[in-house]
């Protein structure tokens, strides 16, 4: 028995060792492989499900392949963030505010943490809005103080000087200034044909001057690191695409007058047969007339300039669908609405989505028109896309999950959860606007109406996620 004891000990050690050294699956987002998993997430190479479906061997080889590029990407993001958080000069200010997009902020958020992502986003938001304000109406000394943590003193001085330039341009735009000396030589200047100088960016100037495309230093961009999905399975090398350099920055436009976003309501007379009505209408406390906009971007800029808690009602008018409202080319979902309106709504202020199906279908109904609308919604937003997905080879379960979730989305309720205190209304049904009907549009002369008139549809309103009576 004594001779067998070492064998038992050896065997038990071997068993313990083998289990210790055996490859175990690595859980998704394991802290030991933080950089690699961030790299996978950024390139959308794997999802937790597809990762879990891999064998331990494949997981290990994927992690091994991604290690080097992930570390490089992490370092690149650190450098990007360090540069971005330095105090900017004027060129960097223009560069970052015009070229930095949502994915860049998300990349910082992913690689360096939420706090740094938020700090970067805050810097961009403050500097962008101040730059816009400086261009439109100039900056006061007090407002420029808020820029001190972000900009070099010279850049702040230049921003303060923009006001004087804008005023000079305004004076030039005044009719008496436009008249000028009455002579033949100056009259012929009016016939100068060419693009609007304010629309010429620095690129165009450079091209005009030396036929080259560059204009200034290359901007710093976060770029995208991409893990070549599937390479891990075949054993091919991981491909890291270096951040793509974007085109050189364009000179910000200096406008001679404030943005022409506000369209007077009565200006949209038209004889067109069919409707092209959409727009955003903003009612503010204390103002006699609402502000109306055709372009979403103009509305967003105007809303940002409004004081907090000043909007009593805002109407998004256009086409709607479950979870999304469009206003021309501008899309509004619950997150966008939060970004635009957070803090700006008065207590009990109303957000009205005037678009079809912007609320869920709700409960049972005896109204046949509402019933037919529900039928149409299910067919158009579930049945048709489901069968389209199936025909293109998507598995039934996946297609089912995707469309069952989406067809009855409730944009109004989701928005009310994002904008606490505000009453958010949408339509449970397809909303029919008589003014949009072909012919009626011509009769009423409102082809480009920005505010809806009567809307036939079942309205639903929410406050903090709970249904409330329509105000």
């Amino acid at each position, binding site marked *: 028995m004594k001779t067998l004891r070492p064998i038992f000990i050896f065997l038990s050690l071997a068993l313990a060792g083998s289990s210790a050294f055996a490859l175990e699956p690595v859980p998704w987002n394991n802290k030991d492989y933080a950089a690699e998993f961030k790299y996978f997430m950024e390139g959308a190479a794997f999802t937790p499900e597809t990762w879990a479906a891999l064998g331990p061997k494949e997981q290990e080889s994927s992690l091994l392949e991604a290690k080097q590029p992930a570390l490089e990407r992490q370092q690149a993001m650190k450098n990007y963030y360090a540069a971005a958080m330095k105090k900017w000069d004027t060129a960097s200010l223009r560069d970052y505010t015009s070229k930095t997009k949502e994915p860049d902020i998300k990349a910082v958020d992913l690689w360096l943490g939420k706090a740094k992502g938020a700090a970067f986003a805050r810097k961009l938001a403050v500097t962008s809005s101040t730059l816009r304000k400086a261009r439109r109406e100039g900056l006061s000394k007090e407002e420029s103080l808020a820029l001190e943590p972000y900009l070099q003193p010279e850049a702040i001085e230049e921003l303060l000087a923009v006001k004087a330039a804008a005023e000079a341009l305004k004076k030039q735009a005044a009719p008496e200034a436009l008249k000028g000396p009455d002579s033949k030589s100056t009259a012929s200047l009016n016939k100068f044909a060419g693009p609007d100088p304010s629309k010429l960016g620095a690129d165009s100037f450079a091209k005009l001057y030396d036929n080259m495309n560059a204009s200034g230093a290359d901007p710093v961009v976060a770029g995208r690191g991409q893990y070549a999905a599937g390479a891990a399975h075949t054993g091919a090398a991981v491909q890291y695409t270096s951040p793509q350099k974007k085109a050189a920055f364009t000179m910000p436009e200096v406008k001679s007058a404030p943005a022409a976003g506000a369209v007077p309501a009565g200006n949209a007379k038209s004889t067109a047969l069919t409707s092209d009505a959409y727009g955003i209408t903003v009612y503010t406390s204390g103002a006699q007339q609402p502000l109306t906009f055709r372009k979403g971007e103009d509305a967003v800029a105007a809303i940002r300039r409004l004081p907090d808690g000043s909007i009593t009602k805002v109407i998004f008018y256009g086409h709607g669908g479950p979870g999304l409202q469009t206003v021309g080319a501008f899309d509004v979902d619950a997150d966008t609405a939060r970004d635009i309106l957070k803090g700006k709504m008065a207590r009990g202020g109303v957000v009205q989505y005037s678009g079809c199906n912007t609320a869920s279908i709700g409960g049972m109904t005896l109204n046949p028109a509402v019933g037919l609308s529900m039928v*149409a919604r299910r067919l158009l937003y579930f049945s048709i896309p489901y069968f389209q997905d199936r025909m293109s080879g998507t598995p039934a379960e996946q297609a089912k999950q995707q469309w069952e979730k989406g067809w009855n989305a409730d944009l109004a309720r989701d928005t009310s959860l994002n904008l606490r205190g505000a009453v958010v209304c949408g339509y449970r049904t397809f909303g029919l606007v008589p003014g949009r009907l072909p012919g009626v549009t011509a009769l009423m002369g409102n082809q480009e109406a920005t505010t809806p008139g009567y809307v036939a549809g079942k309205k639903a309103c929410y406050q903090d996620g709970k249904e409330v009576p329509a105000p």
Partner: protein
Amino acid sequence: MTDLNYILEAVLLLAAPLVPVIAGHMLRRKFPQQIALGEGTEPVPMTGARKLGRWAGNILFWGGILGILFMIVVVLNFKGRI
């Protein structure tokens, strides 16, 4: 099986607007405005129940037609035509 369920559901949903039209049509045939018993005979006067049946048939039939038109408008709206 999932596909079959959804095909059946789609068929039923598509048939929904036609149901009142068909029911109305059947009621209108069952309760015609005049019943002729033969040549030279007086038409049978409409009783209250027959009038009600005819009236229900008319409502279902024309309501159903309106429903189908409504669906067409909804689809045109969905496609961004109106």
